[in-house]
């Protein structure tokens, strides 16, 4: 900014917030394509854990009318007819690629909030001038991410997070924008035109049910929503809606959250690859989930006060006898020790397990979390034992970080892991495993 600009009456506007929303197009599918050029221009879906339903679709698959979450067994005929390639999800790969995208963007603009595995908000009002303006900055982000990681992204820019999301939607659906749209730079007329053309259901935070209710009130387009009486909307839908409308009008209500708040609960659960009948095998699965959850617990420097363990039969098999069991096991002392948590979880499992059922799913949830540094002393507190436990857990996490989760674990989680989830067509973990690197001739 020049001194001249600082002395003009507009100076107060110089640092009005400006948000960019950057998201990767069809993220999981795009990750797969980076390492497998044969998937280019081929219809590709990525399936959920256990290969149940579609969680990511390439544009070709979207064009066939396949919806998000469509159960895969219902798509089998489409698979044959159109040659859809269905891949099991490879979260190890997606996680690594996500980190790379964020680190490329952080180099370009440090004010960043990672919103999900494939979306980030960036504050750009202080940095855009370094790149010659907002739209040029958007293109630099887009080109840099594409070149460095191979992933295609779209960039939406606006005065608020909700407007940045809205701009991103425009960029994604309209090729003439080349993947970058700044609604803050549009004339009021132009912005209103886009708002008239786009359904209210596309607005960030407005789900299907709310949009159905809005349509009954004759609010169909985004423009209808911003022109509606905000007090009336608030009376019908509450403060969240009021905030959404304010944001669409350009009043920023949602700030950048640079640190994701610690989770209040940590869950780890999954369906088994096949039905499980014995407490021994289910116990191994429960212990494995404790491992995964406890690792996350320590990573956010929390301790748990209790653990919830549950088992379920397959509710989709009506002919089978059904049983769902779950219980919370409180811990004598808060803990982040995998061994203490495993003992508690297995104790709970023994209480809820019933013979004679075919089990489909189990899991654990760590609850009553608190910050480790402000933990309360208890009657049975043993500082020496606690220090010993901390050292063991530190070593456990370090080994598993370097050698892959599950390298070092309690014997309770089993050796063969027969309960492991079904993922029949998972691609190699190209970027994190020495034995699975892509091959070049």
């Amino acid at each position, binding site marked *: 900014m020049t001194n001249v600009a600082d002395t003009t009456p507009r100076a107060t506007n110089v640092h009005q917030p400006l948000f960019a929303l950057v998201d990767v197009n069809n993220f999981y599918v795009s990750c797969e394509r980076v390492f497998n*050029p*044969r998937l280019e221009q081929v219809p590709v879906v990525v399936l959920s854990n256990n290969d149940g339903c579609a969680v990511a679709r390439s544009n070709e698959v979207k064009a066939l009318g396949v919806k998000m979450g469509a159960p895969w067994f219902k798509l089998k005929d489409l698979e044959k007819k159109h040659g859809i390639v269905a891949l099991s999800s490879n979260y190890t790969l997606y996680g*690594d690629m996500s*980190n*790379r*995208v964020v*680190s*490329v963007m952080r*180099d370009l603009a440090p004010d960043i909030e990672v919103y999900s595995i494939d979306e980030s908000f960036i504050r750009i009002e202080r940095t855009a001038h370094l790149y010659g303006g907002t739209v040029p900055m958007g293109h630099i982000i887009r080109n840099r991410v594409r*070149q*460095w*990681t*191979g992933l295609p992204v779209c960039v939406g820019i606006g005065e608020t997070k909700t407007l940045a999301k809205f701009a991103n939607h425009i960029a994604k659906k309209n090729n003439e924008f080349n993947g970058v749209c700044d609604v803050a730079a549009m004339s009021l007329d132009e912005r209103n035109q886009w708002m008239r053309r786009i359904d209210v259901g596309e607005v960030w935070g407005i789900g299907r049910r709310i949009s159905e209710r809005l349509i009954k009130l004759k609010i169909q387009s985004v423009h209808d929503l911003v022109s509606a009486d905000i007090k009336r909307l608030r009376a019908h839908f509450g403060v969240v809606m009021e905030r959404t409308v304010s944001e669409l009008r350009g009043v920023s209500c949602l700030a950048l959250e640079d640190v994701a708040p610690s989770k209040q609960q940590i869950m780890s659960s999954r369906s088994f690859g096949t039905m499980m009948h014995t407490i021994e095998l289910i116990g191994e699965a429960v212990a494995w989930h404790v491992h995964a959850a406890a690792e996350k617990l320590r990573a956010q420097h929390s301790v748990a006060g209790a653990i919830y363990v549950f088992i379920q039969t397959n509710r989709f098999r009506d002919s089978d006898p059904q049983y769902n069991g779950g219980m919370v096991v409180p811990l004598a002392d808060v803990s982040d020790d995998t061994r203490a948590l495993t003992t508690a979880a297995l104790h709970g499992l023994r209480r809820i397990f019933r013979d004679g059922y075919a089990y489909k799913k189990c899991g654990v949830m760590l609850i009553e979390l608190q910050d480790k540094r402000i933990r309360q002393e208890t009657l049975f507190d043993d500082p020496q034992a606690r220090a010993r436990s901390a050292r063991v857990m530190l070593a456990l996490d*370090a*080994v598993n*970080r*370097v050698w892959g989760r599950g390298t070092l674990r309690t014997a309770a989680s089993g050796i063969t892991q027969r309960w492991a989830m079904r993922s029949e067509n998972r691609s190699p973990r*190209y*970027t*994190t495993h*020495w*034995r699975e*690197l*892509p*091959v*070049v*001739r």
Partner: protein
Amino acid sequence: MNSHNHIVMRTLHQTPVSLAPEPSVHEAPLFLYKVAAGFPSPATDYMEDGLDLNEFLIQHKAATFLFRVQGNSMRDAGIVDGDKAVVDRSVEPQHNHIVIAVVDGEYTIKRLYRVRDRIELHAENPTYSPIVIAADSQLEIWGVVVGVVRRYPA
């Protein structure tokens, strides 16, 4: 698994070249001279961090990927079967760079020959002939090879 059996036997204290998300763990050197009495130890002026292979091989971590080389088409450039090629996507490919290119849906490692409008991919092994890219077609280059890693089964 055949040619890369030798990486199976790594033990904990051998630090492999790693692209793990965490920075590599290394012990900070200790500075243990006493300040008050006499002269400071002249050795402290020479205290430095240890050598880090990540730093040597990787300039742009977010853009760097490893490939496993199969076959010997680049033998005379010193790249042989089983080597791990370090590929930096942030580098702009130029004439004479060794690159990973996409040819017929497969990755190929070759030297990029690009003079005027002529684009070719040259093997570094006389038994392979150059791949000539037709004048009206595009060549997709996945990344530029900036290094090679090899371990011997010792």
